[in-house]
């Protein structure tokens, strides 16, 4: 039981369960999934679909954060991606042709990849601090997206493209299949190869990693590129969702949601050890949270308040201090009677453990 309690996914999963239970109490049929025309329908399915773009962005964000970085530009990249794809489809004489759609997707992804390359260049080659380097694209990127759409909300009708938003594959929403599929592949690659460890080493001590022959710079560059690419993919899903490219609003604040997903999942923003499974749960928590607000009929006015409370609760419960409390209780049970219980349990804040990183982090 105690090991369960100390597992790094315990609190995020608990948060998810609490949210689902709350929804089910408010609405007993909440978890019901029905099959129609061989497709699954229902709130859980909706949640999977709405999680999809966030999951992709959070995936890239996790890798970037592992290298001690952060990518604030993902929201803008989402907007650019939709703008490029939909402008291409809209300007083509035959929006329903798969070739048009594939070209549009390819164009968008390549451009977003390049935007990622740009971020990576600023960070890894020019050595600009990530938060500022990506702030540049965060600002300019939306401008670029508007430039592409000429400030209009570009809308299209294209059956093959619409599949990305509301189509079904294998009975599940195509967007969810795509996002979870990409996530699984990346997670597999990162953890089954040495990539994860090398990223962590880069994030913890770039100088030592370089001397050990780790291509720190290339790795750093790569994660920003990946983040751009995943954000681009997310942008396609988001624009296909409404079949509109809204340069101003598409992906607005998604960077914050993604960072929150990463943090709720137990990855420290100070880089190093990261948990992709945590990010997955984190993204689900956020998507479910948004849904909960509507289902519980919580006034939209207090939505941010509700968000804040959940975030504070999860992060406090996950904080080193709270974990020590749990450890301390265990230790007290373990220590023989008569021995003096520790004054301040475990290492005090002044212990040699670096307070910015969580030593108990476990990787996925």
């Amino acid at each position: 039981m105690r090991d369960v309690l100390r597992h790094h996914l315990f609190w995020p999963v608990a948060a998810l369960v609490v949210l689902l239970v709350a929804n089910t109490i408010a609405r007993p049929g909440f978890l019901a999934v029905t099959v129609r025309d061989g497709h699954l329908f229902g709130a859980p399915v909706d949640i999977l679909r709405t999680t999809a773009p966030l999951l992709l962005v959070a995936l890239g964000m996790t890798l970037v954060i592992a290298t001690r970085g952060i990518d604030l530009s993902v929201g803008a990249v989402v907007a650019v991606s939709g703008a490029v794809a939909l402008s291409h489809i809209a300007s083509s004489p035959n929006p329903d042709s798969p070739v048009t759609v594939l070209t549009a997707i390819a164009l968008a992804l390549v451009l977003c990849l390049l935007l990622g390359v740009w971020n990576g260049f600023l960070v890894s080659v020019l050595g600009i601090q990530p938060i500022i380097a990506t702030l540049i694209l965060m600002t300019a990127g939306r401008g670029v997206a508007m430039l592409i759409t000429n400030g209009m909300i570009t809308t299209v009708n294209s059956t093959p493209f619409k599949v990305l938003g509301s189509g079904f594959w294998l009975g599940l929403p195509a967007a969810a299949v795509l996002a979870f599929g990409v996530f699984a592949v990346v997670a597999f690659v990162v953890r089954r190869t040495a990539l994860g460890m090398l990223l962590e080493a880069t994030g913890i001590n770039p100088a030592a990693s370089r001397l050990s022959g780790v291509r720190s710079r290339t790795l750093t560059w790569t994660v920003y590129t990946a983040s751009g690419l995943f954000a681009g993919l997310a942008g396609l899903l988001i624009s296909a969702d409404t079949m509109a490219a809204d340069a101003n609003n598409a992906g607005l604040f998604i960077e914050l949601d993604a960072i929150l997903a990463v943090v709720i999942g137990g990855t420290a923003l100070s880089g190093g050890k990261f948990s992709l499974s945590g990010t997955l749960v984190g993204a689900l928590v956020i998507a479910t949270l948004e849904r909960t607000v509507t289902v519980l009929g919580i006034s939209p006015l207090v939505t941010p308040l509700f968000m804040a409370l959940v975030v504070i609760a999860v992060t406090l419960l996950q904080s080193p201090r709270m974990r020590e409390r749990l450890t301390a209780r265990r230790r007290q049970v373990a220590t023989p009677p008569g021995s003096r219980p520790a004054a301040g349990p475990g290492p005090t804040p002044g212990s040699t453990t670096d307070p910015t990183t969580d030593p108990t982090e476990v990787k996925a």
Partner: protein
Amino acid sequence: MATSAPARTPRARRGLRLPTRLDRRYLPVLGTFVVLALMLVVGGTRYENFLTPAVISNLFINNAHLIVLAVGMTFVILTGGIDLSVGSVLALSTVITAALLQAGLPVAVVIPLAVLAGTVIGLAHGVMIHYFQVQPFVATLAGMFLARGLCFLIAPESIGIADPAFIELATWVQIFGQWRMTSSVLIALIVVGLGFLVLHFTRFGRTVYAIGGGEQSALLMGLPVARTKVLAYVVSGTFAGLGGLLFAMFSRSGYSLTGVGMELDAIAAVVIGGTLLTGGTGFVLGSVLGVLVLGLIQTIITFEGTLSSWWTKIVIGVLLLIFVLLQRVLSLRRT
């Protein structure tokens, strides 16, 4: 971002041994100053009525609240932290001010309350960050949501301020020829002076720098790390509250959606002013210059007058880039 500075190689150290008269720590600020001057010159030659006392006065009048936010942010960033909540806290303070004034409370009661709201939120951040070791980015992100939620709870709609005493305070202006100085500019300048004095002439201020230089070291040196860190967030929160007051004076209203993204402006200003996000180096005066640079970018864009909204965004991005690159070049030449 609680990242620690990259390990210093022995070579970097030798570079610093070169004899120089001007302290290298001032170089980034100087760089910002040079760029600011350049922008003024370019603007002055390009547009009519640009290099006028009215425009320069406006620069300060329009950005007084941002200056106050940036000073608070400087404290936090110097400790190696960050405060994402300041935009929302500013909004909260405007809403509290407007709502309480509307309810008929006297200005003398309302002003301290509005500022205090920021102080309390700052304190909460400090406690979360220091005692629960929640990362600053996350703690203040939660604070950002919290403050915004409170805004909506108090009043979703924008509330006008008609209180005569408040209006009088807001419209107080001192005119020197073409130059104008409003009460908010005066307050902002006082805050800057205070910030400077506290950072350079108190133990608290020096401990802020020490923590940024290495929290672990500061602890082992026996410095009051806990108190100082918490206090830095209290300062930032308080100044955000005060910033809200200035903003309420500026807009004569309280609105829950105000200041969205303003924290990024404040952070950008601090960074442009030469403060490192890793903590330990930087100056309040640099942050003030950073705010002026951002303000001047806006001014230039309005003077240009033909930019569609997308070009506005792209131009801001490009200018930010040029700025960061310039600073980078400057700091590379240092070693």
